[in-house]
């Protein structure tokens, strides 16, 4: 499957299919379905400095062709991750992308510092999670703040730095450029879109947190647009995310300019989705006589 390998700057992936953060646990949960090392990489659940219990229930609700979640970044914390979760992933020799999240710039830096001495080849900087009160979102919504945190993490982590962008902004290209200039090696987009559903009987939000993040096929057209826009404005590699479930969805993102993609919500519906996509992509390229995936990337024909 050499036609599928990808180089995101200095990060080599055997294929472009990555399990999205928060939708694949720490990589152990789905081992019954397929070998985790068949994926290009695994992005871990968002990791914070201290363990977090996350938000109260209910945390998820289905919406038309999508779902809203406000898990609130429940995670074991960076220390327990490195001690207890990382060894499994290391034993499988799969590329690990540590998705990290801080309440403050200092926390981001601290977590990155903890990761520097480990084997983890890449950090995905989550500056875009809408489900926590402090931090996160504010960084992602402002180019200046986004650049600041990127730069700070850059200075303490010397391997691949991927920055995950928030779609809840007027101009994603602006944030993308700022982050690229601040030293990001790649960009992943999009995170979930802030959304709300209301229980009309109780008049309460369907999610205890009030608002949450919309994911799934419903947001795909928005994500594809954003990837296409960002592709035109930055030079660093893009990882496309948002409602990808099957081959054709992924192809849209590659054509729009993504060099790799992440599978999130689809894994909930089809535990095998990411694995199946690797196989389908390979067959597609073969049958279409395309020598390498990169021939597809960014081939979108914009209207003149």
């Amino acid at each position, binding site marked *: 499957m050499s036609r599928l390998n990808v180089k995101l700057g200095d990060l080599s992936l055997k294929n472009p299919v990555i399990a999205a953060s928060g939708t694949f646990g720490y990589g152990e949960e789905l081992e019954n379905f397929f070998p985790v090392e068949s994926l290009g990489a695994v992005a871990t659940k968002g990791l914070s400095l201290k363990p977090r219990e*996350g938000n109260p*229930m209910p945390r998820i609700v289905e919406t038309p062709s999508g779902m809203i979640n406000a898990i609130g970044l429940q995670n074991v914390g960076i220390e327990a991750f490195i001690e207890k979760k990382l060894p499994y992933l290391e034993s499988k020799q799969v590329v690990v992308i540590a998705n990290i999240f801080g309440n403050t710039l200092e926390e981001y830096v601290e977590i990155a510092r903890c990761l520097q001495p480990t084997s983890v080849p890449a950090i995905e900087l989550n500056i875009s999670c809408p489900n926590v009160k402090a931090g996160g979102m504010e960084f992602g919504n402002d180019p200046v703040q986004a650049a600041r945190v990127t730069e700070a993490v850059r200075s303490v982590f010397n391997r691949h730095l991927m920055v995950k962008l928030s779609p809840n902004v007027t101009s994603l290209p602006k944030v993308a450029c700022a982050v690229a200039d601040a030293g990001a090696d790649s960009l992943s987009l999009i995170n979930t879109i802030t959304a709300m559903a209301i229980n009309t009987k109780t008049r309460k939000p369907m999610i205890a947190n009030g608002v949450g993040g919309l994911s799934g096929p419903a947001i795909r057209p928005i994500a594809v647009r954003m990837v296409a826009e960002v592709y035109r404005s930055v030079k660093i590699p893009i990882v496309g995310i948002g409602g990808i479930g099957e081959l054709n969805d992924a192809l849209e993102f590659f054509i729009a300019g993504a060099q790799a993609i992440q599978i999130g919500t689809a894994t*909930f519906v089809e535990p095998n989705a990411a694995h199946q996509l690797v196989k389908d992509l390979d067959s597609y390229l073969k049958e279409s006589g395309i020598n390498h995936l990169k021939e597809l990337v960014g081939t979108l024909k914009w209207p003149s």
Partner: protein
Amino acid sequence: MKDTLSQIVYHRSIGNDYYRIGLKTGWASFQPGQFAMLQVPGDGGVLLRRPFSLARQEGEVSEILYKAVGRGTRNLVKLQPGVPLKILGPLGHGFSSSEVSGPRVAVAGGYGIAPFWEWSLQLAKLGHRLQIFYGARTKTDLLYLDELRDAGAEVQCSTEDGSAGFRGLVTDLLREQFPNGKVGRVYSCGPWGLLQAVGQWCESHSIPAELSVEEAMGCGTGVCLGCVVQNRAGKYFRACKEGPVFLAEQLKLN
């Protein structure tokens, strides 16, 4: 746990929006209390699978007892035998097979009766008889009565309106029957209010109790963290993975 493209073998209305659906899963067996994530028709943008307790395994066919309540289940009703449906299971942890001294009692509410069909059969094979206390709103919400008796269980019913059995809450019936709490172990499945009452009663009599909780589920496989329940220390556990059956002492019951 695996994902199977099964076929609907039978699909019957049993009144009052309740349905029995048989799916050719080919599964060997399951532990009662375990569940499955079933694909339902996608109308109106339905995306996620739906969790249902497994009620019975007979040969290659797994049965689910469901109530049509929302978009997914109401569309499910329309599917006829022969239609293929994906089903992921058996999932989670069911009731435990630990040794018990004293009567084994099940307390079920509504469609929470489902796991106790297979559970009655499995216990009967081991020479145990399950004593089931079964509460529902009204007579027509009492399901599987013949099946449970055929499976060797002893069933006592209660209805809120008194249309069948004891009039009142099933926990009142339970209290009445075991005033001193001389019970070996309690298994319970039903709405949260029922589980709370059962858990508290068991606690007050020091009866070990296993409660099967019902939470909204995104994945059923432990990766989304959408289905959690809290223990008494405020720590969250996944209903789909560590549960859906928990020891009462593990759960924050108020």
